[in-house]
């Protein structure tokens, strides 16, 4: 029941917003539906807390600790983003960058996008998972090109083609998975794609087929995660779309894609009885972290900067999942949470900062602190948090990742150290000059909504110094599940 609410609400919201296209109240309706979704997510979460993992509707949907926390996170960030986007899009409209028709598209697609992500998270069927991932691309591609500038069109085109091709490979992987379970193992019909079923029989699945399948799945979903060298769409799409879209792409979509990868990894690991999947994940993770760090170094555009930072963090998380084991998985899950909260908060502030400056070029944004202390401090604290400075949660997870790596995979630590060091220098060196110094910015026609920013940062702070016991227990269960 809760699942239907969870999935039905955003879908209904999308339809409603598409149909009504209400000019004045669209943003409020958007917020209302997002809030309702959040409530539904809370209900789902409560049920998992109460009953443990459950499947529903002929086992088509499945909720366990791993996806339940992602569902809650997705609904929460979706809600805060909708809050943020209200004043943000109004200012954009005021600046004449969007017209009412596009606003309508924006609001409808926002809800559809939420729907696709929640579907991808809750479905038990690997095929549906693929469908939902593809749908998520389709829903966002028009959001990326919302401004219809040449750059945004180019970005959207690249996004579409690259993710389309990537996801096509994931489909091939899914087919192979189905082939392994159905053709070779004799599972029938839908059950051959059900993750719960596959998870049970994983030890008996054919290793070679699963290895090949994993390559395709990893390359496919990995493209959406933004793993190097498949990441090329990511900075473009983040930089050229409206900021709320960047926030949810970075904060949520990447998580969901990574979720898909990890689900596949669990199966493959179980089947091959080797470190094949782990090594692939670690390799991709490290490569992404390093490549992203060096790409950060010469950035000029603020949204591209934080887009690359997302690649870097996804790399770290992927690496942690690759190492596996209770601590690394715990760290990876925690890192997913805090990265999503922090990065979306950063995009919120960045959006307003760019609006104030009228540009995304960092050299032209100066002295935020003078004109607007709250945005300035928000950006500064958010940046410090994302760079892994305590007492924020990102530090907690990086602490666990690094210490575990030092123990389990010492060869990887210099690479991680290099990536973190270069990324720190690159990001902080830029952000500092934007926040501090003499200002050249103007006031905005509409006061920004900043409490989402500080709520996120407060949560990240709490996760850094005192992780609630229930949440920790949850992470532990999920970590054990991932293995």
């Amino acid at each position, binding site marked *: 029941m809760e699942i239907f609410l969870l999935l039905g609400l955003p879908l209904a919201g999308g339809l409603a917003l598409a149909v009504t296209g209400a000019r004045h109240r669209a943003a409020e309706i958007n917020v209302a539906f997002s809030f309702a979704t959040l409530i539904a997510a809370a209900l789902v979460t409560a049920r998992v807390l109460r009953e443990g993992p459950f499947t529903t509707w002929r086992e088509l949907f499945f909720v366990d600790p791993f996806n339940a926390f992602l569902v809650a996170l997705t609904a929460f960030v979706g809600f805060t983003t909708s809050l943020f986007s209200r004043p943000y899009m109004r200012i954009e409209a005021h600046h004449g960058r969007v017209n009412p028709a596009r606003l309508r598209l924006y609001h409808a697609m926002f809800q559809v996008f939420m729907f696709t992500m929640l579907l991808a998270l809750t479905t038990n069927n690997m095929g549906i998972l*693929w469908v939902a991932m593809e749908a998520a691309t389709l829903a966002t591609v028009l959001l990326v090109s919302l401004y219809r500038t040449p750059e945004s069109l180019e970005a959207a085109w*690249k996004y579409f083609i690259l993710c389309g091709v990537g996801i096509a490979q994931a489909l091939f992987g899914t087919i192979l998975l189905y082939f392994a379970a159905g053709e070779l193992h004799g599972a029938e019909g839908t059950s051959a794609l059900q993750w719960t079923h596959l998870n049970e029989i994983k030890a008996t699945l054919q290793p070679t087929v699963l290895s090949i399948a994993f390559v395709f799945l990893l390359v496919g979903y990995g493209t959406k995660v933004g793993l190097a060298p498949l990441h090329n769409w990511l900075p473009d799409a983040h930089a050229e779309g409206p900021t709320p879209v960047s926030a949810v792409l970075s904060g949520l979509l990447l998580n969901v894609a990574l979720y898909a990868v990890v689900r596949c990894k669990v199966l493959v690991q179980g089947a091959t009885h080797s470190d094949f999947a782990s090594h692939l994940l670690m390799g991709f993770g490290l490569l992404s972290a390093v490549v992203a760090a060096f790409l950060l170094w010469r950035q000029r555009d603020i949204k591209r900067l934080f887009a690359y930072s997302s690649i870097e963090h996804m790399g770290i998380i992927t690496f942690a999942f690759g190492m596996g084991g209770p601590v690394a998985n715990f760290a990876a899950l925690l890192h997913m949470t805090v990265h999503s909260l922090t990065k979306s908060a950063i995009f919120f502030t960045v959006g307003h900062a760019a609006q104030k400056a009228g540009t995304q070029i960092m050299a032209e944004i100066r002295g935020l602190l003078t004109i607007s202390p709250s945005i300035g401090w928000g950006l500064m604290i958010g940046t410090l948090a994302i760079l892994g400075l305590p007492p924020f949660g990102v530090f907690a997870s990086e602490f666990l990742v690094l210490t575990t790596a030092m123990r389990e995979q010492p060869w990887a630590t210099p690479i991680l150290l290099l990536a973190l060091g270069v990324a720190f220098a690159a990001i902080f060196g830029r952000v500092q000059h934007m926040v501090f110094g003499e200002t050249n910015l103007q006031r905005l026609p509409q006061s920004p909504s900043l409490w989402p920013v500080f709520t996120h940062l407060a949560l990240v702070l709490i996760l850094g110094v005192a992780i609630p016991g229930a949440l920790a227990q949850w992470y532990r269960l999920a970590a054990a599940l991932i293995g």
Partner: protein
Amino acid sequence: MAIPFSWQLINLLAALLLLIAFAMLAQRRVTALIGLYAGQGLVLAASTAAMARISGLPHLYVSAALTLALKVFALPWLLHRVIRRLEIRWEVEPLINIPATMLVGIGLVIFAFNLAEPISQMASPITRSTLGIATASVLLAFLMMITRRKAVTQVIAFLAMENGLFFAATSATRGMPLVVELGIALDVLVGALIFGIFFFHIRETFDSLDIHHMEKLKEH
């Protein structure tokens, strides 16, 4: 041991699929490409139907019908409309010349067959050859995407890739669950629509569908 006719049919269709994939790789004219795409769709529908007969799975007939409707009629029609509206006839020279592309393509086919070899050993005799061919056609379509310059040809290549996948799904694994197939079909349809929308946006903005206009976003 003699192979039953229906199996031979499927093998023949698979071979046709690969042939068409090569033909597409070599083809420069856009209209001809659309024709080849439609032909590939037809082969696909036929093989799905054949598979449905062999395996006796009713939902494969639905798949076959869906394929026929979508890939033989709807999408080619849509593409034709688009190119007529946008007045595109010729593909200019691809990035790599065609003979070289063909050579690479042959290499890919060998690679794909070798890759599928160990799996085929385990599979039932029907699906033995099809998996390799499906992989090969996916890779060939991928190659085509890389070497083409026009947005439209890229999209056709993308759709051809999807055909290869679909072939793998139906012939190698006797069809995915219906709900999944429906979902995939929906995605393909929506995707194609969005591609259509994009063509117009791109044309409007850049005055051309040549993708070399879209190389502005890069690191300096």
